[in-house]
């Protein structure tokens, strides 16, 4: 569908991952898709912001904590997921420092239906302020798949300038997976632009410490 040429993309990904392998860093480099827009006015045009779920998890080391009822706590134990129950939350006594510490410890939170309603009362707005208010997990869905879904979500937001970046993978992923993540995110973002590809000036792929490779 897209104007993104597969071979150009594949080559960029190969070069990018090779570069990363050559000069080893002490951390896993994230791969970012950088988009330059054109014919778009941030003051007049509609906001360009949201979250998208990628097919392959870009940040596997993302730490998730389950705020669960008895049933969810049991499942969390089984799959080795950190958890806290209602009692543990009540003990925090709405202490801002404790809530802030909890928010810093994890990248994201999940919560059972019974608990999620109590959070404003038990913890106050601390998780809101950290941008980490929990996502609901019901008993009808698999906790493990919900964790994976949470890890696969990436945010994008265009602020006052015409360029933005979105995480699409890491240097430890297979090239094919990076390819699929890039394709999906590009197609999704372009579908939200009113002039589609006419709004895209350029696309670059870049690893955290590497040099950018143009793909469009």
């Amino acid at each position: 569908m897209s104007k993104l040429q597969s071979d150009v993309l594949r080559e960029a990904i190969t070069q990018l991952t090779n570069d990363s392998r050559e000069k080893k860093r002490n951390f896993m480099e994230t791969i970012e898709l950088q988009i330059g827009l054109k014919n778009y006015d941030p003051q007049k045009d509609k906001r360009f912001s949201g979250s998208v779920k990628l097919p392959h998890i870009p940040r596997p080391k993302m730490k998730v904590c389950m705020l669960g009822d008895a049933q969810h706590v049991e499942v969390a134990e089984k799959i080795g997921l950190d958890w806290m129950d209602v009692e543990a939350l009540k003990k925090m006594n709405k202490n801002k420092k404790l809530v802030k510490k909890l928010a810093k410890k994890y990248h994201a939170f999940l919560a059972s239906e019974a608990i999620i309603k109590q959070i404003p009362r038990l913890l106050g707005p601390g998780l809101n302020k950290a941008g980490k208010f929990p996502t609901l997990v019901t008993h009808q869905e698999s906790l493990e798949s919900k964790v994976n879904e949470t890890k696969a979500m990436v945010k994008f937001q265009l602020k006052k300038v015409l360029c933005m970046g979105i995480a699409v993978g890491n240097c430890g992923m297979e090239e094919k997976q990076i390819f699929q993540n890039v394709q999906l995110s590009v197609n999704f973002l372009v579908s939200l632009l009113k002039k589609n590809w006419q709004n895209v000036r350029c696309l670059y792929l870049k690893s955290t410490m590497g040099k950018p490779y143009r793909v469009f």
Partner: protein
Amino acid sequence: MEIAAEVEMDIFDGTAAASSSSFSAASTSSKRLAIKNTIQTNFHEDYVFQIASSPEISTLAVSLSSNTIKLYSPATGQFIGECKGHISTIHEISFGVPSSPHLLCSCSSDATVRMWDTRTFKQVSLIKAASYQEIFSFCVGGSSTNLLAGGGKSQILFWDLRSSKQVACLEESHMDDVTQVRFTPNQQNKLVSSSVDGLLCLFDTVGHIDDDNHLESVMNVGTSVGKFGFFGEKNQKLWCLTHIETLSIWDWRDGRRDINFEDTRTLASDQWNLDHIDYFVDCYYSETKDRLWVIGGTGAGTLGYFPINCTVPGVIGSPEAILEGGHTGVVRTVLPVSMTHQGILTEKKGVFGWTGGEDGRLCCWLSDENLAANKSWVSSTFVMKSPRVRGKNRHLPY
């Protein structure tokens, strides 16, 4: 209000009276609406952001991307005046103060909420937030109906309208731009806010408002929220449109999500054979019929009213009204006629509503297809050139 109800039933019932000759391309139950007139609001490249009106007065207020608000007569399409003053993007306008029907309020990225007298076009009130702020939405209400709430960058501000003084600031419940604030319809002492951070928050606004004790409930939509609205027999439901063009239905009293339409644009597009739906403008709720529609649009400017069946799991139906041939670009606002003053319409034809878009146009749509109306709209596009002449023709009896 009675006339408005008639108009609604005329459109959304299969039993429309006179000219129900629909050129039904999509399905037999979808009506293509005719345009009554089109007004070009400017000859630069300014967008129409929003159209506002109120049942008490016969003026249409139109906010433009040039930081001004233009006023038009809904009956003739005549330009009446302009409210100038904002020095940055206007995000919302409304005739939101119940006791003052001529008072138009607006909020902007210039960190102000301003009030204008629509009879004189002059600014009569100015409420300022800190200079780094931008106000994206506002609402008047509260238990004493004297509270003005404004959504800003990560903050919700409250002012007392009587003194114009700021009385509270909530800054911990959102960590990104607050895109909309609304007092709940039946209980005016509760406020719902939406934000780019993906949350819908419910606050109690009685007494001294603070972050620690007034946050009642949080609904995590999961992605940047653009707009929401109340609906349902007891206004207990919320529809929510996100910036990635998805729709979800919530019960805000219970704080839970009823329905999530994950790929809303495709679900809507599948219901007709016109161009792909690229975005949603708004949702429309008819209280008399207890029905909800989502208004989807194409890049070329065609709109469709897609009915939503809110019984779980939720279904988007085929469009019951199609507005084509009015706009040439993205449509940004729709104002249903039930929100305007009906009494002075010289023609008894039912007006369906008004739309405005990035093409700078203001379009008035008729609720039934009348070929005579189609012919008359051609001449009315010149309304800007000779408004007075046209006005005379309208009122001189032969």
